[in-house]
C-alpha cells in the first residue's frame, strides 16, 4: 500500500501512456487524442452554424467518455493513492519560483496561484482565462495537442507531428523563460 502511494517513476507512466495508443486502436479504431474533445463539446453545445462544428458529434462520443474517465481516474488517485509528501520539484525550479512568491508545495498545483480567490484578479485572468484560451485555440489550430501530435503522431512517424511537437516546446520555452518573468512582475 505504501508503494502505491509513492509517485511513480517516469518509465512506468511512459509505458502506460504509450500503451493507450494500441489500446484505443484495438478497442475500436480510435485515434488517441484529447483536444478533439473540446471541439466535440463546442459541436454539442454551441455549434452556432459554424461549418467547423457542424458534424455528428454523437459519433465521436467515445472521446467524451475517455476524458470523463481521465477526471474520474484523477479523482481516485488523489483521494485513495495520494502521495502524503510534498510534490517533487527540482531545487533550481524551486528557487526560480520562490522569486515569484510561489511557496506552497503541498499539492500538484501551487495553491498560491490556483484558487478561487484569484479568479477575478490579474493572476486569475492570466493563469486561467488567457492560459486556457491559448491552449484551446492553439491545439485546434495546430490540429492536436501533446497526445494527438506528440504521442499518437510521433508513434505513427508523422513528420507534421514532429513539427508540431517542436513548436509546442519552443512556445513553452519562450513562455516560461521570457514571458513569465514579466507576467509575475505584473500580477504580483
Amino acid at each position, binding site marked *: 500500500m505504501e508503494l502505491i502511494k509513492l509517485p511513480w517513476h517516469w518509465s512506468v*507512466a511512459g509505458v502506460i501512456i504509450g500503451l493507450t495508443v494500441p489500446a484505443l486502436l*484495438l478497442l475500436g479504431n480510435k*485515434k488517441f487524442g484529447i483536444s478533439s474533445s473540446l471541439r466535440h463539446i463546442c459541436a454539442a453545445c454551441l455549434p452556432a452554424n459554424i461549418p*467547423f462544428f457542424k458534424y455528428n458529434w454523437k459519433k465521436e462520443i467515445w472521446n467524451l*467518455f475517455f476524458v470523463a474517465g481521465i477526471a474520474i*481516474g484523477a479523482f481516485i488517485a488523489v483521494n485513495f493513492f495520494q502521495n502524503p509528501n510534498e510534490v517533487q520539484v527540482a531545487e533550481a525550479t524551486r528557487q526560480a519560483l520562490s522569486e515569484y512568491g510561489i511557496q506552497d508545495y503541498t499539492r500538484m498545483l501551487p495553491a498560491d496561484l490556483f484558487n478561487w480567490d484569484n479568479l477575478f484578479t490579474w493572476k486569475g485572468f492570466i493563469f486561467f482565462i488567457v492560459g486556457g484560451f491559448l491552449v484551446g485555440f492553439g491545439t*485546434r489550430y495546430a*490540429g492536436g495537442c501533446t497526445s494527438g501530435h506528440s504521442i499518437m503522431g*510521433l508513434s505513427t512517424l508523422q513528420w507534421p507531428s514532429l513539427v508540431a511537437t517542436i513548436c509546442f516546446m519552443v512556445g513553452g520555452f519562450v513562455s*516560461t523563460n521570457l514571458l513569465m518573468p514579466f507576467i509575475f512582475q505584473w500580477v504580483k
Partner: protein
Amino acid sequence: MRHTDAMCTNESELQHPWWHNFKYLAVGIIFGITFVKAEVISWFRIQEMFRLHAFHMYGVIGTAVVVGAISVWLIKYFKLRTLYGEPVHFEDKKFDKGVIYGGLIFGIGWAITGACPGPLFAQIGGGFSVVAVTLLSAIAGTWTYGALRDRLPH
C-alpha cells in the same frame, strides 16, 4: 487530432449501442490515475521541463512515444484487428502552417496553465475545481478558432 483539415470528422464504422463506450471510460480512468501518480498534471513538473531542470517529463513523453511506436509497428506487422474484427486504420497527418502557428500558441498556454488538454480534465477531477474555469476558457478558445478558421492563415 483526427482530421486536421476536415470539416467533418465522421468516418464509416460499425454501429454499437452507446454503452460500448464504457470501455473508453475505463481506459481514461487508468490514464487519469497514471497522470496523477506520475505527477504529469503537476504545474511544477511543466515548469521544470521548460526550465530544463529535470528529466522527468522528457522521460514520460519519450517512453510513451517509444512504446506507442513499437505497438503501432506490431499492429501493422501482424495485421492485428480490432475487438470487432475490423482492420486497424492509420491516417497521415496533413501539414499546413497552422501546425506551426497553433503549436507555438499552444506551447505558450501550456507553460502558463501547466496543463495540456488531458491534464486539465485530470486537475479538475483531482480537486482543483478552479481549473474548470481554465477548461471553459479552452473550450471558448476552440470555439473562437472554429469561428475564425476561414480567416486564419493555414
